[in-house]
């Protein structure tokens, strides 16, 4: 696994531990991992909402969850699942236990299996908000646009300054060809990520903002947005590809070739070709 990806995963999982433990109830993990959306998340500094106090803490010393998280990091999902299932068995009313189990599927991109577990986690504790966000992404990846939006919007009031929630709603608006709404959402995501110095988040939101601009045939603006995105996150190969497309359309063939070359190099490093079709 490339170093950047490993680093990112470690961060996500670290946060996952904290979330699942109830130490924080914040959405610092990136649930969006679709191949069309390069999503890089880092913890932000905003104050998290308080976790629901209706629930007893699970796994008091954190050992089970830590082990579970390690196994997910090593892509040993079955073993991680066994541990998470034990948590669910021991704490059948725990939203966090269900979230942990759901993550073992979510990280394996088995969204159909993760979805009901996340729904259960939401139902068990409406004040435990992270599952709502994950539920939104699960549904998004399953093609359930309306239900994804519903989950994202349920999460939004609990953490309105979280850039990824606006990013997600922007994607759905874009899918629906609601360009002004998409632009508004991506603008907000860019603004929040910028204020919170979350470069990777800002980059991906700018890249998607550029998609809207391209649709509106505002190619120069799109080019500038993509250049900024790539500067903020030099790993964002999807933006490099789009940049090359925009350069071509603007007639700048040399820059287009360079951007494409950059895309090919970074992409091969970050997502080397593997089995069919992953």
């Amino acid at each position, binding site marked *: 696994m490339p170093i950047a990806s490993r680093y990112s995963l470690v961060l996500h999982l670290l946060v996952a531990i904290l979330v699942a433990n109830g130490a924080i109830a914040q959405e610092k993990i990136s649930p969006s991992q679709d191949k069309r959306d390069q999503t890089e998340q880092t913890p932000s500094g905003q104050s998290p909402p308080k976790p629901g106090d209706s629930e007893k803490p699970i796994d008091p010393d954190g050992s089970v969850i830590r082990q579970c998280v390690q196994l997910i990091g090593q892509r040993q999902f079955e073993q991680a699942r066994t541990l998470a299932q034990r948590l669910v068995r021991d704490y059948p009313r725990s939203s966090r236990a269900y979230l942990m189990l759901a993550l073992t599927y979510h990280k394996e991109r088995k969204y*159909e299996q993760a979805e009901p577990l996340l729904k259960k986690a939401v139902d068990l504790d409406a004040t435990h908000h992270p599952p709502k966000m994950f539920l939104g992404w699960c549904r998004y990846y399953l*093609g359930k646009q309306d239900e994804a939006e519903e989950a994202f919007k349920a999460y939004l009031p609990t953490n309105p300054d979280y850039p990824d929630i606006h990013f997600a709603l922007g994607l759905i608006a*874009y*899918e629906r*060809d609601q360009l002004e709404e998409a632009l508004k959402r991506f603008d907000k995501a860019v603004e929040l990520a910028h204020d919170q110095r979350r470069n990777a988040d800002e980059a991906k939101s700018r890249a998607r903002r550029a998609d809207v601009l*391209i649709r509106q045939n505002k190619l120069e603006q799109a080019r500038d947005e993509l250049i900024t995105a790539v500067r903020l996150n030099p790993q964002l*190969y999807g933006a490099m*590809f789009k940049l090359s497309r925009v350069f071509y*359309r603007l007639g700048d063939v040399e820059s287009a070739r360079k951007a494409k070359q950059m895309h090919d190099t970074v992409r091969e490093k970050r997502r080397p070709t593997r089995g069919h*079709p992953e």
Partner: protein
Amino acid sequence: MNRRPQFRFIATLIACATVPMNASDIHFTEVARESGVDLTMTCGATPSRHILDVNGGGVATFDFDNDGDLDLFFANGATIDNPEKGPGSRLYANDGAGKFTDVSEKYGIDISHWAMGVAIGDIDNDGFDDIFVTCYGPNILLKNDTQKPGVGKFIDISEQAAVDDDRWATSAAFGDIDADGDLDLYVVNYLEFDPRKPPSREGIKYKGVSVMAGPHGLKPQQDILYENQGNGTFKNITQNTGCLVDQPGYGLVALMLDFNRDGKQDIFVGNDSTENFLFQNRGDNTFDEIGQLSGIASNMDGSNQATMGIAISDIDGNGLPDSIVTSFSSDTNTLHLNIGDGFFEDRTAQFGLGLITRPFLNWACAFYDFDHDGDEDLFMSAGHVYPEAATTQIDSDYEQPQLIFKRRDSTRFERVINAGTITTEKIRGRSAAFGDIDNDGDIDIVLTQLNGPVKIYRNNTANRNALSVELRQNSRNHRAYGSTIELTIGDQRKIRWIHGGGSYQSFTAPVAHFGLGLKPPKTAALKITWPDGTAESFENISTSGIVTITRGQKNVTIRPFKK
């Protein structure tokens, strides 16, 4: 009759006349058996063990005997244990009303080795369509001498025509790339596969589930471009034309079409898990591969997709052919709009064809106005390659309903889920060909399954307002592949292309079909741009029936649809 029932009757009539058409207007009935097609396709073992087992067989709709109706050809496969001896490809003759008779033996169809796909074209300009069959093993060219006195059969001329390449070919497309009046041939090859040493499944996983190997890790094969020599033989010109690429793809489909409307036939090749190719014809028998440059090689993020099928339509009404390519599950199919100046843009999301297709693995595809409301809808066959596929395991089922999208308005498609068993029954859909097989004016669908019975979906649309247009050229490229047909009706202009290839491993009869809405004007105008760029216009064409236009003849023939 008392007054109340009479009032109800009148009210019903008024309601029928005024109710706008909606998604439920697209409806099909499965009629394969009652049509006389009781054929189960073969392609490897069930459940599939290797990548050779998963492609399924192709189908063609074409009029081999020139009797005015669409006959059927099925490219049937075999098994890895005995790739030379499968149940055999089949030819069915249509009685004109959509009833078929198996005439394979009568007309000398004797192919028992592993057939994959089919392309149709009149290679010798004798006015009868010949059959090219792509195979795992030597490809086959069958010359249509069925109506020739003293012969009465298809004759296998593969070897003498020099098109019997024995690599694993999937699809093929005919088209006149050098504008010399005869049909050239592009053959799409997939990968190297030795049944004696099939690749190991060891360690191959998809979403954590152990699956068969490939295509990554297996060696892709170069495609072949053949030039028709005009004497019954073909010459492999791949190397000298720019079609020999540095990195071949895992080819599954090709379509020949003039994408930039410069009067020359280009070649669009869909590759599995590798970038798609667009060979732009320079007009001197050479091509530039501009897939990446044009933007059609991948989706908007630059991801190479598992392209299975291709369909074209003028989605945005700018007179240029746009394309959709079908793809793997947990990915979206990709709609590329042809925005001119040699560029394509991924507009999948804009038209509502993105997220909604993620649970499906799609193969064959085509745009047709299935409900005759005036715009083209979309069909995509569906079914997974992995027998292990289950929604609970990899977010996608092994057997899937077929997908139909109705064009809702100028910017969106909407999935139709109540079009009959076609959209509800879960099967292993693969190749599909299209056409009005019962001559009633609407487009029916012939679908093959992987190791399952052929399906024929008869279109039940109530709106009969449609026009079909066939083209003829005497003595050269007689079905006029490479022509453009523009229909002007009222203030609307619609465009269709006559081309070879597309869908997936299949061939669809080159007939342009126009749905005309609920109350069309009685006449329309047609402009035909023939393959060499010459244009002819026809006014006051009656807006119902099958119009046949022969180049250079001002009088068109119109056959009425059957009731």
